[in-house]
């Protein structure tokens, strides 16, 4: 098992990077919501799933293609997020974040349950868009075009988000509002609206990841359920509230997981927790976390 060929290793690293893009995109949304709004958004996986279903329906019912879905699905699901925030989460402002967790967990159950009732558990197919079928033979591996697109696209989105939040004043408002919303509001910032929109944005990111994954994975009601805990771990390892932390950790975890899949595949679902335990032992606030 240990006669590693560099070629195989390269291939694993690349594949890991691809998976990392999903982790990064999902954990980014979760980090925005958690770090900024102090809501542990357990519905993230369910909303990710809805993003994928949204793409499916846009295509199969309305004939709207993948590229439009990439824009429309996050908007639609993001709007749903805004509604959820306005009608439910908002009432939990100022409470311990356990309550947000319980509420979003309940929402996740409802959403997943409903989808399962109507679409069954084995899911629906969604084809790779015409323009991105096929792939490149890199010598050491065959890289599907679609996967290459996923890496590039999510990296772009991640960096743009990071810029929008860390390099503009928005990030400072959000962080401050987490600590003391009353005061930030008294400074003249419409905190409730900002929180609503941020939640909608985080949810939109989840939906975007869902659309991206639709052509790769079967569009299944439970596709997000197993992911949520891993993605949450990524956010913690990166350091809660750190946007860059979640992006870097997302990609890094993808790669490490890829290597684990090669050397000790049985443990590939556990490796993230091993890393989390080690990181928290050495750096109590995560890799990029503020003390």
């Amino acid at each position, binding site marked *: 098992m240990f006669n590693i*060929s560099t070629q*195989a290793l390269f*291939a*694993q690293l690349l*594949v*890991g990077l*691809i*998976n990392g893009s999903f982790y990064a995109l999902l954990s980014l949304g979760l980090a925005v919501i958690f770090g900024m709004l102090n809501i542990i958004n357990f519905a993230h996986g369910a909303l990710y799933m809805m993003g994928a279903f949204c793409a499916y329906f846009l295509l199969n019912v309305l004939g709207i293609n993948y590229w439009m879905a990439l824009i429309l699905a996050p908007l639609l699901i993001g709007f749903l997020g805004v509604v959820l925030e306005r009608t439910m989460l908002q009432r939990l402002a100022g409470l311990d974040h356990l309550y947000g967790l319980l509420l979003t967990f309940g929402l996740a159950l409802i959403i997943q*349950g409903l989808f*399962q009732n109507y679409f*069954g*558990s*084995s*899911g*629906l*197919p969604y*084809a*790779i868009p015409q323009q991105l079928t096929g*792939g490149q033979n890199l010598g050491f*591996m*065959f890289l*599907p075009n*679609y*996967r290459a697109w996923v890496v590039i696209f999510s990296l772009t989105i991640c960096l743009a988000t990071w810029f929008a939040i860390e390099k503009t004043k928005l990030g400072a408002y959000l962080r401050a509002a987490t600590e003391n919303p009353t005061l930030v509001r008294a400074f003249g910032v419409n905190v409730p609206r900002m929180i609503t929109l941020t939640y909608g944005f985080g949810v939109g990111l989840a939906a975007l990841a869902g659309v991206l994954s639709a*052509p*790769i*994975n*079967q569009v*299944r009601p*439970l*596709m997000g359920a*197993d*992911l949520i805990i891993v993605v949450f771990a990524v956010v913690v390892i990166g350091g809660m509230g750190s946007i860059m932390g979640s992006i870097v950790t997302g990609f890094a975890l993808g790669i490490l997981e*890829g290597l684990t*899949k*090669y050397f000790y*595949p*049985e*443990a*590939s*679902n*556990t490796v993230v927790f091993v890393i989390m335990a080690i990181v928290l032992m050495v750096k109590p606030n995560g890799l990029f976390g503020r003390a």
Partner: protein
Amino acid sequence: QDKNVKIGVLDDMSGLYADVGGQGSILAAQMAIEDSGMAAKGWKIDLISADHQNKPDVGVNLARQWADQEKVDGIFGVLTSSVALAVNGVAKEKNLVYMNSGAATSDLTNSACSPNTVHWTYDTYLLANGTGKAVVKSGGDSWFFLTADYAFGHALERDTTDVIKANNGKVLGSVRHPLNSADFSSFLLQAQASKAKIIGLANAGGDTTNAIKQASEFGITGSGQQLAALLLFYSDVHSLGLKMTQGLQFTETFYWDLNDGTRAFSKRFSDRMKNKNQPTMVQAGIYASIIHYMKALEANGSNPHDGVKMVEKMKSMPTDDALFGKGEIQPNGRKIHPGYLFEVKKPQESKYPGDYYKLIATIPANEAFTPLDKSACALVKK
């Protein structure tokens, strides 16, 4: 004579296998009760159902409660090996009839066999033997396994490996992936690097469908390597679509479009399903096992609530139904019937909705399951 009998369908209603069993299982049971015509003969057959959520302890609790409180006489269905084994113990303790359709583990009729248990539809031996043997014989003599890292996956890999070796094939390697892996590209690359002719998928449900989908994306199926799904259900093929699954070979014991009998049943079935789906072999197994149970009830004449007696009666009667044809139940509880090696049609070969499979080979009943003399079951007199 007491003509009141209550049976329960215990299955995954909300989880990964809800399409394989789920609501369809309940419908199959209802149809069996109706078709048996027992009501006309003065029998009152009650049906209840519940979701075991794929958790053994939930399954055990429900089964026990059914026995104690609901006075259930027989439990049917029970997908997922771990739950199936757990319920097996309760059925024996409470002296129920337990007819499993859906669990893969061949332990049910070997080390864990019980005088209360009949294992109907398929098991790992059949899957390994059916698919493994046929594929090796048709030239797929070098294998690489993607195995789900749990008892079922291990058993499937082990059994298939035995079959491959017995047929002069070889196994070049395997990876054991955790249950519910979303991404298979890494494993697929390893499989690709092995240069094995056949990539055997020793997993189930979402793992299998994702692996198949990604194999096509990575151009594996186009590059000379072939996938063999060791456990694939009609519902999986239906959900993946023919484009993705074309050319896949696998074993089932029931296909809706197999003969007139299956077609007639399936038509009635799909008309009554909310999503108009055709029955899976698991659902068909529930139907057939209940039909046989009803026949035994009638033939029995004495106490219908005595599980061991009922199962003995069933073993003593040959089985015959429209879905699985003629067969028998062996002393170890194994229901014997033929298996079928199918190949998924190309999209252009499919003539009408649901026309998915090509029959490649029939595995005769006497070869499909563990030979009695090899059974580890204590009920088998040697």
